């Protein structure tokens, strides 16, 4: 459990850095060219890491045929999030994406779909997810008025 938590913390910080770097790229480069670059480098880095940890054993596997279509999911992410942000603005869209993400996670753990180990549902877990969702909304949407006011103050 402790190792899982440490890895999740490390992973989350990497996501934040990646999002920030990508935001800088997107100021000059279109969404799909950016996505192509990001996934291309992700592929190279994973390939190199795999080769350095496992040597040519990396290629010694038998994939089920659907594995080769798994990349479509990532493209679904970019498409949906980009459209959501365009129509709702980043604040609302990203908070909704995150709340949806955590809600589907609870659903998935509960149902144990896809060969995932089933984690039994409890109302306590539901409460935890509601609190996390509220925290996300507060983070993303809270204090926007205060910021507008302070901008006005600065302008005045």
């Amino acid at each position, binding site marked *: 459990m402790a190792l899982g938590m440490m*890895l999740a913390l490390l992973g989350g*910080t990497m996501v934040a850095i990646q999002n920030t770097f990508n935001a800088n790229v997107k100021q*000059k*480069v279109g969404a799909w060219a950016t996505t192509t670059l990001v996934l291309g*480098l992700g592929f190279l880095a994973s390939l190199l890491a795999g080769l350095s940890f496992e040597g040519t054993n990396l290629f010694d596997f038998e994939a089920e045929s659907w594995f080769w279509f798994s990349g479509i999911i990532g493209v679904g992410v970019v498409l949906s999030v980009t459209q959501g942000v365009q129509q709702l603005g980043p604040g609302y869209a990203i908070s909704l994406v995150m709340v949806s993400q955590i809600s589907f996670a609870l659903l998935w753990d509960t149902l144990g779909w896809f060969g995932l180990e089933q984690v039994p549902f409890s109302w306590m877990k539901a409460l935890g997810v509601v609190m996390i969702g509220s*925290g996300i909304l507060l983070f993303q949407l809270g*204090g926007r008025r205060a910021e507008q006011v302070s901008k006005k103050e600065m302008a005045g």
Partner: protein
Amino acid sequence: MRGTLFAIAGGFFLTLQSVANARISSVIGTWQAATITQMTGFLVALLVALLLRDKTFKEMKHVKPIYLSGGALAAIVLFSNITAVHRMGVTLTISIFLIAQLLLALLIDWNGWFGMVKRRLRMPQVLGIALMIAGVVILKL
């Protein structure tokens, strides 16, 4: 309404991605899963970029190289995500990922790191993260 549906779908795909990666990795291994999903994702994105005639590739030379390199972090992200999902399930993994992500985003904005606009640290953001951490504690009870 359409924007709302897109945002909900985005969250669904993100969770599906974690679950699918964990599933693939338990059959063929973690680095194999990371390499396959990134490679196929790259090919589909390239295809979409070509179909939509995204001609902005050459603008990349106007971006600082360090920012262009962000994609490579996916190797760490995928390894952490896959291992964490195997060890403690999707809900806890995604919760902690989101907390770390928002906490660092807050620090980046506060300090104006990586070319971001500097913003004041505001109470709702701090409270939001505190509420999320409390939620994780409850999840683990």
